[in-house]
């Protein structure tokens, strides 16, 4: 691990790679995931899914299924008149079970609840559904063509949790949302340019493959609903459940056990409303555990078609950028309005551009619904934008590193009006990557190198709370609504609480992700947890300490002088720890103080985004010209994180994110036919990286204390994914002379591009 640190030294255990809190549970197999849980009296659900990508449902007959011994309930939309069927935190366009129409192959149509999973599965075959097929669109081009079938005839309610301020604009019935980013005189910028580069780029429909499939258990009792779910945002799920079932927020409890991977794919609401509806009709606790093949049909990443043009001065300075991004967002909005909003922002790159005109439209198609996927909106545009930086450098005869150094914004400089100033030193990051790639020495023959950089407006909304309880023995319980999805929040947040309370780490315990027992957090995404929840914990700790100071004055100093001291107070030169103060104030052996931490859009959190998340990646590649196989010889990441609370965990995030980006760059793509069939909806044919695919790797952490979070921290974990496809494409260009416009860069695509480069070459197929 390489760490480049210019920040002040933080208090222990900040900056220390302490072992993960969940380590023993996870290495012994004791860690319980939702898929491992059962509830007394629990029944099992299986889902009958539509074989058609677009059709009207003309009839559903469940009588034979209900007659099968062991079947408890068979539920379709017709059985849920008392439930609000349509959910969605941005647009409430998504029925929890098909309502008259199916809009993608695999959409849930009937849910069966039975005593055991095998019986439920058996009953699915006894349900009879008749469909009237409708015309199908699976590409953005087809969905916007004249006469295209319309997916949503009903206008969906816009919801306040969409994650951005403006109303969702829709200029065509198949447009789910439209976002723009515009400033400057774009026509003048292009008219006066020395060089304009223009092109089309395609980013694939991808699948996050969280290894734990979507799983939920719903249990109605005591006038309320309890749901255990493998989800990232329990409070958002709670809000949707309360709305669907007409319950107060306080009557819905969402509990998140250990989560087997998220990467954005478990953001927002998925199968929880359906599971709760099945439990309601079955009058039993119900577990719905999807297979991976069903999970692929539940959520995937937005594919993108990007038309982009960038205008440059002769010295390589950007004058303007135009882009039109079309996201293939599938059958329902899910989080794609925000993905589109972010894509429009992030395609601008971390560059000073006098004029910008970007439109991003998320398009409905008859494919599985797209939503958040690590980096959301960034990689789609960064692939295009960073490809053009190299293209311009080449045509202007400027070094690709140098053209970026000339254009990146300086620390404090805003990318657009009213945005938070850049809280990173991008030029220094570029130089770290260059150094790790030995940029100044020529690459070996047949090899190419590239460095790409991105900035994401990250952190989502600064809405979070924390309670920090100091017990009578001086130990601390911290409650937060943030979810441990593997990123290490249960360790990092405990480190922050320990540092703020001057306590050894083993005196601090966390309660997370329980909407009744833990305190509110908006979401676990957008790389926000360390920064935003960290600040809420700091505020809670300060509130607790301030109360403890008061209590010490009152109960230990008779109203006299109390001096703050490490881990407690000094009264007349005698040290009293936190526990002693609590016991003295309550005049007994028990009691506790409750510190409250609130984070909202105020103070240091007034300017948006809460922080910039930087992606800075270097790649060196070679290409087998006979097969078109790309071999990545080295990957470099620079994690510009301000202060690494736990460096080992930050490094692990960067490596994991970059390898996930490498998978999309080289092999990952869900392929739909024009007729709406998913050709590779399984882990055999959707190929994710394996151990033998991992190149030599250099992970660098840059810590300059420039983040808004505690001790100068800011978010990480997604940035390293965003520039990977662009870095590989640019390195391939330098190694071979071919320019790749469509990810993933499969051997076939590379081979075809090589043949186009050498049209007369012998041995053409």
């Amino acid at each position, binding site marked *: *691990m*390489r760490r480049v640190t210019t920040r002040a030294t933080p208090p222990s255990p900040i900056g220390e*790679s302490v*072992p*993960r809190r*969940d*380590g*023993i*549970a*996870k*290495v*012994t*197999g*004791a*860690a*319980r*995931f939702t*898929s*491992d849980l059962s509830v007394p009296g629990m029944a099992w659900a299986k889902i009958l899914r539509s074989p058609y990508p677009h059709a009207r449902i003309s009839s559903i007959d469940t009588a034979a299924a209900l007659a099968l011994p062991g079947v408890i309930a068979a539920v379709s939309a017709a059985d849920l008149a008392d439930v609000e069927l349509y959910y969605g935190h941005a647009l409430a366009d998504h029925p929890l079970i098909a309502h008259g129409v199916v809009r993608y192959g695999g959409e849930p149509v009937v849910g069966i609840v039975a005593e055991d999973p*095998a019986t439920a599965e058996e009953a699915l075959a006894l349900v009879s559904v008749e469909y009237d097929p409708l015309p199908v669109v699976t590409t953005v081009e087809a969905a916007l063509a004249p006469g295209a079938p319309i997916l949503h005839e009903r206008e969906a309610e816009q919801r306040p949790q969409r994650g951005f301020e403006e109303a969702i604009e829709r200029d065509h019935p198949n447009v789910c949302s439209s976002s723009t980013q515009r400033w400057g005189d774009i026509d003048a910028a292009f008219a006066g340019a020395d060089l304009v580069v223009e092109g089309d780029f395609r980013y694939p429909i991808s699948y*996050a*493959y*969280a*290894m*734990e*499939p979507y799983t939920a258990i719903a249990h109605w009792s005591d006038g309320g609903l309890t749901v255990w779910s493998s989800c990232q945002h329990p409070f958002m799920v709670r809000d949707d459940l309360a709305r669907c079932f007409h319950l107060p927020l306080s009557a819905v409890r969402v509990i998140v056990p*250990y*989560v*087997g*991977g*998220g990467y954005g794919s478990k953001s927002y609401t998925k199968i929880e409303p359906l599971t709760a509806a099945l439990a309601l009709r079955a009058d039993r606790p119900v577990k719905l555990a999807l297979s*991976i*093949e069903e999970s692929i049909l539940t959520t995937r990443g937005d594919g993108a078609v990007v038309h982009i043009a960038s205008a440059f001065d002769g010295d390589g300075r950007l004058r303007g950028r135009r882009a039109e991004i079309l996201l293939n967002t599938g059958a329902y909005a899910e989080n794609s309005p925000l993905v589109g909003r972010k894509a429009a922002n992030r395609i601008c790159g971390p560059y000073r551009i006098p004029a910008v005109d970007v439109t991003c439209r998320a398009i409905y198609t008859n494919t599985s619904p797209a939503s958040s996927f690590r980096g959301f909106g960034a990689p789609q545009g960064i692939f295009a934008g960073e490809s053009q930086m190299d293209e311009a450098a080449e045509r202007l005869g400027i070094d690709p590193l140098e053209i970026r150094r000339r254009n990146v914004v300086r620390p404090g400089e805003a990318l657009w009006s009213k945005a938070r100033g850049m809280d990173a030193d991008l030029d220094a990051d570029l130089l770290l990557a260059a150094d790790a790639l030995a940029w100044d020495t020529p690459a070996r023959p047949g090899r190419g190198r590239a460095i790409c950089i991105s900035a994401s407006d990250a952190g989502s909304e600064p809405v979070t709370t924390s309670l920090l309880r100091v017990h009578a023995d001086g130990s601390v319980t911290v409650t937060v609504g943030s979810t441990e*999805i*593997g990123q*290490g929040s249960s360790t990092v947040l405990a480190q922050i609480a320990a540092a703020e309370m001057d306590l050894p780490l083993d005196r601090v315990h966390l309660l997370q992700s329980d909407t009744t027992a833990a305190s509110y957090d908006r979401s676990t995404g957008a790389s926000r947890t360390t920064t935003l929840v960290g600040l809420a914990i700091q505020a809670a700790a300060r509130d607790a300490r301030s109360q403890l100071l008061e209590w010490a004055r009152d109960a230990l100093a008779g109203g006299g002088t109390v001096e703050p001291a490490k881990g407690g107070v000094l009264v007349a030169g005698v040290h009293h720890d936190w526990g002693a103060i609590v016991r003295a104030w309550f005049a007994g052996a028990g009691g506790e103080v409750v510190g409250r931490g609130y984070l909202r859009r105020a103070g240091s959190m007034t300017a948006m985004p809460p922080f910039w998340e930087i992606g800075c990646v270097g790649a060196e590649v070679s290409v087998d010209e006979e097969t078109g196989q790309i071999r990545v010889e*080295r*990957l470099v990441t620079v994690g510009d994180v301000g202060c690494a609370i736990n460096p080992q*965990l930050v490094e*692990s995030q960067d*490596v*994991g994110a*970059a*390898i*996930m980006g490498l998978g999309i760059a080289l092999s990952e793509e869900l392929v739909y036919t024009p007729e709406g069939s998913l050709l590779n909806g*399984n*882990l*055999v044919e959707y190929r*994710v*990286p*394996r*151990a*033998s*695919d*991992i*190149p*030599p*790797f*250099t*992970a660098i952490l840059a810590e300059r204390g420039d983040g808004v979070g505690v001790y100068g921290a800011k978010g990480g974990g997604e940035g390293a994914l965003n520039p990977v496809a662009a870095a590989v494409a640019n390195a391939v260009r330098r190694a071979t002379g071919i320019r790749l416009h469509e990810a993933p860069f499969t051997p076939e695509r590379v081979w075809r591009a090589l043949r186009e480069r050498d049209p007369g070459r012998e041995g053409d197929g």
Partner: protein
Amino acid sequence: MRETVELSLVVNGRAHPIRVEPRETLADVLRERLGLTGLKISCDVQVCGACTVLVDGLAISACTYLAADAEGHEVTTVEGLARAGQLSPLQQSFIDAAAFQCGFCTPGMRMAATALLAENPAPTRAQVVAGIEGNICRCTGYVPIIDAILEAAGAVDAAGVSEGAR
């Protein structure tokens, strides 16, 4: 009535008399009948390795292995590896290297590594990579897992992240 067969399933050194349907997989029986939820089910098609357990010391995918076929063999799951509250060297090295994030692949990865080290106590880096090729980890990028296995084997070339996989 569904057809069932009577088995004596030996798991982690203990015999469990149990009646199963012939179609039931070893993964389902271990998880749902014996409560051994350490092994996970993910891909369902024997490509991810999350359900890896040992049968007579060899790593197999329990999601596609019929429980009935385990009759007469010794099954070892992740629960059978920690003894008397002590972490094994592999478990300790997984913690030290942060060789997991979400932990869903970890039990299967541990079993694959156990089988690998039993067969080859001093593997090279390339041999470790080959040994876990059947196990997917979506979080870590594999690098710390490879390091952890080499570390547990006492290898001197467990040089950390900069080595990558090859």
